[in-house]
């Protein structure tokens, strides 16, 4: 019996390692070769930091990086405000309104991204609006805001509604009660919605491609076009870029995890 359990345990470990290899092999390969002078992976080369230097000297890539991050922050901030207000409104609305808005909110979530992208492109083409930063922001808001609403709504349902009434009884105006009582209670949901929006915006290709101005590029559109046009000179830069972003992500995720686990400790 013990032997059998041990065998299953080691099989489990082997299985996990196999999946991890599949998940991490491409990224590790990329990271290793980002420190190699070879232009093409597999070619001979020596240790070199030249791609990293070239990356930061490339005005184009630095601009694209800044574009991507700024866009993500603007889109996430706006969609968090819009979505949080929307969720509070939905929660306190009559049943009918509540249902209709929630169904509309589910459309972009269930929809294929390409259909969302096409529908927006049709709208902007029809009202003869050239693709501008505005259309791009709208595209990202459509992408992110529904997820803010779905993150905030459950927190509203968990909330003790009497506290809001109590605040009113004690003389707070509705706006004050909202700011001082409701918002603090749903804050984890708002934060989750914000972070999710950042992730979605950073990750997006299709909606961005359909709503962006011609000369504007994010990491996604730049890399996709570079790879499609087989621009070999860009590939090593992309390796260095991926390595940096991935390491940055790992640091951020670890910090977040440590923070959330220490919060849980406090609760106990």
């Amino acid at each position, binding site marked *: 019996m013990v032997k059998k359990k041990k065998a299953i345990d080691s099989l489990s470990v082997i299985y996990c390692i196999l999946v991890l290899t599949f998940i991490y092999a491409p990224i590790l390969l990329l990271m290793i070769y980002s420190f190699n002078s070879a232009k093409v992976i597999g070619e001979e080369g020596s240790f070199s930091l030249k791609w990293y230097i070239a990356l930061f000297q490339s005005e184009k890539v630095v601009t694209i990086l800044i574009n991507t991050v700024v866009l993500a922050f603007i889109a996430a901030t706006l969609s968090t405000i819009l979505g949080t207000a929307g969720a509070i*409104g939905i929660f306190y609305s009559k049943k009918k309104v509540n249902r209709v808005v929630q169904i*509309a909110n589910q459309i972009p979530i269930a929809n294929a*991204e390409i259909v969302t992208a096409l529908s927006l492109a049709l709208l902007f083409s029809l009202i003869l609006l050239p693709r501008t930063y505005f259309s791009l922001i709208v595209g990202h808001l459509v992408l992110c805001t529904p997820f803010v609403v779905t993150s905030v709504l459950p927190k509203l349902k968990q909330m003790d509604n009497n506290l809001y009434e109590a605040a009113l009884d004690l003389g707070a*105006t509705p706006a004050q009660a909202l700011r001082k009582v409701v918002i603090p209670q749903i804050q984890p949901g708002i934060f989750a919605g914000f972070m999710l929006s950042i992730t979605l915006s950073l990750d997006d290709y299709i909606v961005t491609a359909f709503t962006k101005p011609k000369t504007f590029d994010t990491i996604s559109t730049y*890399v996709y076009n570079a790879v499609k046009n087989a621009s070999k000179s860009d*590939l090593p830069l*992309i390796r260095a870029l991926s390595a940096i*972003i991935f390491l940055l*992500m790992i640091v951020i*995720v670890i910090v977040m995890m440590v923070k959330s686990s220490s919060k849980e400790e406090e609760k106990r």
Partner: protein
Amino acid sequence: MKFHFSRKQLCIPYAVFLVCFVILPMLLIVFYAFTAENETGNLTFSFNNFIGFFSSPSKWQTLGVSVTISLIATFFCVLIAYPLSYILARSGWKKSNVLLTLFILPMWLNFVLRITALRELLDMIGFLGNYDYVNTIIGMVYDFLPFMILPIYTQLLKLDKTLLEASKDLGAGAFTTFTKVTLPLSMPGVYSGITMVFVPSMTNYVVSETLGNSNITILGKLIEEYFSTYANWHMGSMISIILLVIIFLSMLATGGFKNDNENSRGSNLW
């Protein structure tokens, strides 16, 4: 009239936004799908796009290829993700969440960069350019695996452990307990994983273009081509409608309308 602030009114900006940028654009798709330009350049109601789609062998082929690729990719996602989620959820290790993070960590890396990384690996082992379909399916699995792991893991974690003990006490072996208790109770997780993998696999043309050497056309790519290359909004919209019908049917089949969407894409990410 004095303005009275009410909590309900907070909904108005978002409702207006939804009408302008979600509902209206979707109506435009329906409008363009069922209209065509006549000789005088006016738009008239027409089934031409519908007939045009289903009378074209190349479009049938695209539809078939898309659905096949998606089914295979979804199958492999379940095949890989289920045992993994089972191991993670049953490990009994207090920090199994940390372990889970290890498996979904690449999700935070931009997906175009991730697919590019995979392309370089496939290029190195000589797959790129030789096995377009295999590469595309590997890419879909690689890209969407976390969306399968998360809901199954969450569902398995929720599973009431006393049920497993009860099953054991009643004389069921480990295998019977798994097939009669664990598996049926974890199916909602599998279903929401399937909806999250199946639809993007039919439409995410970044994967098929990057790894399939631009030799594979999936539905998403076809829509993009009709909009950008041929400037034919009508056919592009019609293909979107057909796609929506497939999405609707797949949600119907997996009960996507029933569950509370707590497993919706990315909901467990933060």
